[in-house]
């Protein structure tokens, strides 16, 4: 998927997030990219998503970008340990991602929200990355 299309999707997701369904769709996108995509793309996506999120939330410009970049980098740097793709690992990453993101942006600790977010994220993540997981397993078998 080209970067422009990704940004357009992000824009629509943010509009949905701030008006229709108050769920962290932006973080879903950034975490998924951090787990699956190329390094340069992740950084730029986190940066642009953050700037857009600040516009939608009316927050100081750059605040969400900084928060998303920290989370994306942390996830990116540990993703090599996630080759097993266990549900609990993905769940924990999403849980702490949402937890810290909320704290950095709203200074709010909300475990229930983070738990719910992690559950939805894990399901979405496994649904969309099913093909890649299968390919990886086949590749391993071949090797």
């Amino acid at each position, binding site marked *: 998927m080209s970067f422009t299309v990704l940004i357009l999707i992000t824009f629509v997701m943010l509009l949905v997030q701030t*008006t229709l369904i108050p769920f962290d769709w932006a973080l879903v996108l950034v975490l998924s990219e951090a787990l699956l995509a190329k390094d340069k793309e992740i950084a730029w996506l986190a940066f642009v998503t953050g700037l857009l999120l600040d516009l939608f*939330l*009316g927050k*100081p410009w*750059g605040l969400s970008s900084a928060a998303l970049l920290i989370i994306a980098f942390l996830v990116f740097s540990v993703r090599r340990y996630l080759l097993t793709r266990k549900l609990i690992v993905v769940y924990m990453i999403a849980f702490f991602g949402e937890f810290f993101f909320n704290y950095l942006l*709203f*200074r709010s600790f909300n475990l229930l*929200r983070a738990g719910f977010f992690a559950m939805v994220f894990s399901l979405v993540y496994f649904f969309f990355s099913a093909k890649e997981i299968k390919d990886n397993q086949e590749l391993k078998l071949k090797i």
Partner: protein
Amino acid sequence: MSNKDIRKAVKPFLILFLLSLIIMYSTKFALVKKARSLLDRPILFLQRSVFSARQKLGDSLVILRSGQEKYQEKTLLEEKTRNLAVTSGQLSVCREESAAMRRLLAAPLPPAWNFIPAKVIGRYQQLKINVGKKAGVESGMVVIADEILVGKIDTAGDYTSSVILVTDSSVKIPVVIRTPGNPGIKARGLINGYFDERLSLSEVLKSEDIKEGDLVFSSGEDKSPDSEIDWLPDLLIGKIDKVEEGKEKVFKKAWAYSLLDLQNLRYVFVVKVVQIKK
């Protein structure tokens, strides 16, 4: 992915992180402010359109489900409940204060409070409203609707502001508890938002007799540690619906709910406290 790959990946992250910090700092400058306000307008328009469409759709669905008459009846009853709670709260406050002073003022809320009307244009963890610094809104100002406390301004932009709700888990408000229609304060405590939905009332002495149906008001005293501006006094926050004696020796706990449907608010008022010249 090796350590070398990670080291290589650090560069774009670091550059963009520094850029974010620079942008954050540069929002003080006029040029960046102008660019921001130019971008804010189309976003504001989009959000307002989608959010009001959602509210209209929500109303239509409720009407479809329960029928036009029942819907109107429900709305009317909800409004009556709110008005009753506000009136009985005011009555308690009025009885306590000088009646002559009240007659002179002829208003339930202090005259030093100016109200800035605002429309709700978005809802995520906080409410987004369509007024900002240009309309005189500043961070820390209290937001009300139907004379009931909604929350406090968290950040104020030029044309929009975000409101942290009373149900947010980071909110702590010193409160007093009154029984509807009775004068005097029944108890004191601290209200905490609970998972964006309910209100948890703590630090109420066991010796104090609070019951279901009692009303919770902001006390206006004690600056809470996480806020720069006090919560204004005598604003209705909610109604107690459960009291737990608990195992603690000194304090008991209670649960309350906001009398407003915070998810579907349309209009709110930002309270600006002005100095009255004598």
